[in-house]
């Protein structure tokens, strides 16, 4: 670990915090339907979309209608991706002549993109046509991100409103989020990325003759436009197989730094949107503080572990940390930082191969996802995930003092706590359930690339990443098999929608409640005590649930490595 390494980490955190407030201000205006500086350009397009699709933007929806609209929207998105993948061979924009993608892989990928997971069982440059990448994947990167954000906003409205039956209009929210927030940032961001060296072309793959006379086929494509939204929307599905480690998908240290920022900015800004909408920005900062504490702790451990290197390397006299599966331009610190960010948020882009991380370094991404990706989290998903934990923490605090718990003026009652538990229980059910199947079913066992405890961790990581809608992988695992294509699709689907529906039920029930003014007995939710309590609840819940599985994987691997055992 070096001073300059820690300075990069500090700089990163400082910029994220500095952007939280202005972006939160802007996003609040967008979701309140107010005018913004982009309205002169975008308002006519927005109105046109409502007109042709028959949306009355003044009409708000009950939480159930809002949820059904969201689900219908995803059925359509699924059909678009699935058909494009199956038909890409006969459609235009296919200069590399990619053939139709197999049924199970198309199914997995379509589920993967509508759930904002972007698990890559496909290898971008070797499987997909440009049309599939653009119309199938880029568009769903926008829409699954917008969906996450608007669901969080609907839940925030539940807290902010009183005695109301509605939580907003899904169609209006999703259109405004796409047009006013995601698209403008992506236009600027994509051009910045091209400037840094990212290709953006519809031309065919380039045939080069290297200095030594060998042939090299260089895959190119419309990369920058997809990568911009892939990062900003915490999607993470790479244009290339190696994702953000590929020099075309992340050419420089600067492109890497800005990509890391883009993973966190919208998620962090949503805490400020929450504060503004409930009428007290300090409520938002308190939540960001919870996230920040967990984040910095994770970065510290991961950076330390990777800088240490492995005992195999020490025995050979290699110093300078664990560079296996890392790129020189990023080095140890930017690779470790990226790994923690991408799993704290539900991004899943990688600029280094997590499978080759040290046992403890690779455990941090795993823990981040198992806690439910609430450390800033996926755009929107992190915010509603965190609010579920806040409800539990408030409930625990209420039990301790024997009062009905309240949060930002709303009584938290049995229905909310039950729904929050229902949503949170999805994680262990899918992660531990499927991992147990994956390590005994022979066809699944054959997919492991590494032997010993590391092989177990590969399986655990896959289902953790799928359920948490992350999409990063211990990529040695051969995921493109019938077993993994179907089981991971089920983990992704349940992990996304079985969390969303209870969260929306909470939004509806909170919006209908009366708002009660704070009294002497109200537990203050803007101070250090509250922050500590929420951090504690998150760690205890996560620890009790996943520690046994972690003990079988990364922890025992670390002990084996120290003892000099290889597999």
């Amino acid at each position, binding site marked *: 670990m070096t001073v300059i390494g820690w300075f990069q980490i500090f700089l990163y955190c400082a910029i994220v915090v500095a952007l939280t407030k202005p972006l939160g201000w802007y996003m609040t205006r967008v979701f309140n339907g107010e005018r913004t500086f982009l309205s002169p350009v975008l308002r006519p397009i927005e109105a046109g979309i409502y007109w042709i699709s028959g949306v009355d933007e003044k009409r708000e929806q009950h939480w159930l*209608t809002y949820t059904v609209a969201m689900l219908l929207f995803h059925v359509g998105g699924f059909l*678009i991706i699935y058909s494009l993948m199956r038909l890409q061979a006969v459609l235009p924009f296919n200069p590399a002549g990619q053939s139709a993608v197999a049924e199970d892989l198309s199914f997995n990928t379509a589920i993967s993109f509508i759930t904002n997971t972007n698990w890559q069982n496909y290898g971008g440059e070797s499987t997909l046509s440009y049309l599939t990448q653009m119309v199938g994947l880029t568009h769903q990167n926008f829409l699954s991100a917008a969906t996450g954000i608007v669901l969080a906003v609907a839940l925030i409205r539940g807290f902010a409103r009183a005695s109301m039956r509605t939580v907003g209009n899904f169609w209006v929210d999703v259109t405004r989020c796409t047009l006013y927030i995601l698209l403008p940032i992506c236009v600027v961001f994509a*051009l910045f990325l091209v400037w840094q060296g990212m290709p953006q072309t519809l031309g065919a793959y380039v045939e080069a003759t290297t200095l030594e006379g060998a042939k*090299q086929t260089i895959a190119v494509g419309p990369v920058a*436009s997809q990568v911009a939204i892939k990062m900003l929307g915490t999607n993470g599905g790479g244009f290339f197989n190696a994702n953000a*480690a590929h020099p075309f998908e992340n050419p420089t240290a600067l492109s890497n730094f800005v990509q890391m920022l883009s993973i966190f900015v919208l998620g962090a800004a949503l805490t400020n949107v929450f504060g503004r909408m409930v009428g007290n920005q300090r409520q938002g900062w308190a939540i960001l503080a919870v996230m920040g504490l967990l984040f910095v702790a994770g970065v510290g451990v991961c950076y330390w572990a990777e800088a240490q290197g492995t005992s195999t390397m020490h025995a*050979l*006299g290699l110093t300078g940390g664990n560079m296996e*599966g890392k790129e020189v331009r990023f080095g140890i610190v930017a690779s470790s930082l990226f790994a923690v960010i991408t799993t704290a948020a539900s991004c899943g882009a990688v600029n280094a191969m997590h499978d080759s991380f040290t046992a403890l370094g690779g455990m941090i991404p795993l823990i981040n996802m198992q806690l439910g990706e609430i450390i800033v989290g996926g755009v929107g998903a992190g915010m509603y995930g965190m609010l579920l934990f806040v409800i539990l923490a408030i409930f625990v605090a209420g039990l301790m003092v024997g009062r009905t718990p309240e949060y930002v003026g709303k009584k938290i009652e049995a229905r909310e706590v039950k729904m929050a538990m229902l949503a949170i229980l999805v994680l262990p059910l899918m992660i531990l359930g499927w991992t147990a199947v994956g390590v005994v079913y022979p066809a699944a066992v054959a997919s492991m690339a590494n032997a010993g405890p590391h092989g177990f*961790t590969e399986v655990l990581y896959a289902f953790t990443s799928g359920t948490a809608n992350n999409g990063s992988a211990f990529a040695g695992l051969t995921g493109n098999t019938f077993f993994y294509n179907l089981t991971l699709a089920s983990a992704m689907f349940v992990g996304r929608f079985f969390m969303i529906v209870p969260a929306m039920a909470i939004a509806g029930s909170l919006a209908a409640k009366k708002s009660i003014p704070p009294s002497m007995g109200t537990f203050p939710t803007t101070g250090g005590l509250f922050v500590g309590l929420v951090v504690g609840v998150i760690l205890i819940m996560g620890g009790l649930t996943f520690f046994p599985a972690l003990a079988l994987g990364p922890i025992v691997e670390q002990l084996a490595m120290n003892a000099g055992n290889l597999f």
Partner: protein
Amino acid sequence: MLREIRPAIVLLLALTAITGLAYPLAMTAIAGTLFPVQAQGSLIEKDGKVIGSALIGQEFKDDKYFHGRPSATVAPDPNDSTKTVSAPYNAANSGGSNLGPTSKALADRLKEDMDKLRSENPNAAVPVDLVTTSASGLDPNISPEAAQFQVPRVAKARNLPEDQVKQLVTANTEGRLLGVLGEPRVNVLALNLALDRIAAK
């Protein structure tokens, strides 16, 4: 609920047209105008032929060139399409080794590469990036230490004084951005092109 079906179809198609077609096509047009070189993949041409990309590593085995990092990329086996064969620096199928910290295969590979490098230059410590595979298998860079490590071999193969080669490495070393971001590095292809230019003189 029935009235949600029309927007589910029409609004989805409208947003798909904007984000999936209009946006990437507009970006392609604008990027091609503003940054034509980068948009095409930062290609390097020599005598009218593309010899590679400034950003993509390529395989060097000859003693007279600086070598990049080991690459774990693969290609489909021409004899059996269900299998893959090693194909270093395959820029149409990026990827890493994915070998874990307790992998015996990784330990064996490290030892083998270490022994080879130690016999090549017994006087210096082997830099870690020269024996570890990169995440993409296409890393265009090596650390300045890894370049300096190879100086005696390259100088000998080219009959150049070591000092001259050393200077060339220093001249091709890029530092951190603003002294903070990233890591010091050397672009292997650029360095080798510079070497060839000296030879041509």
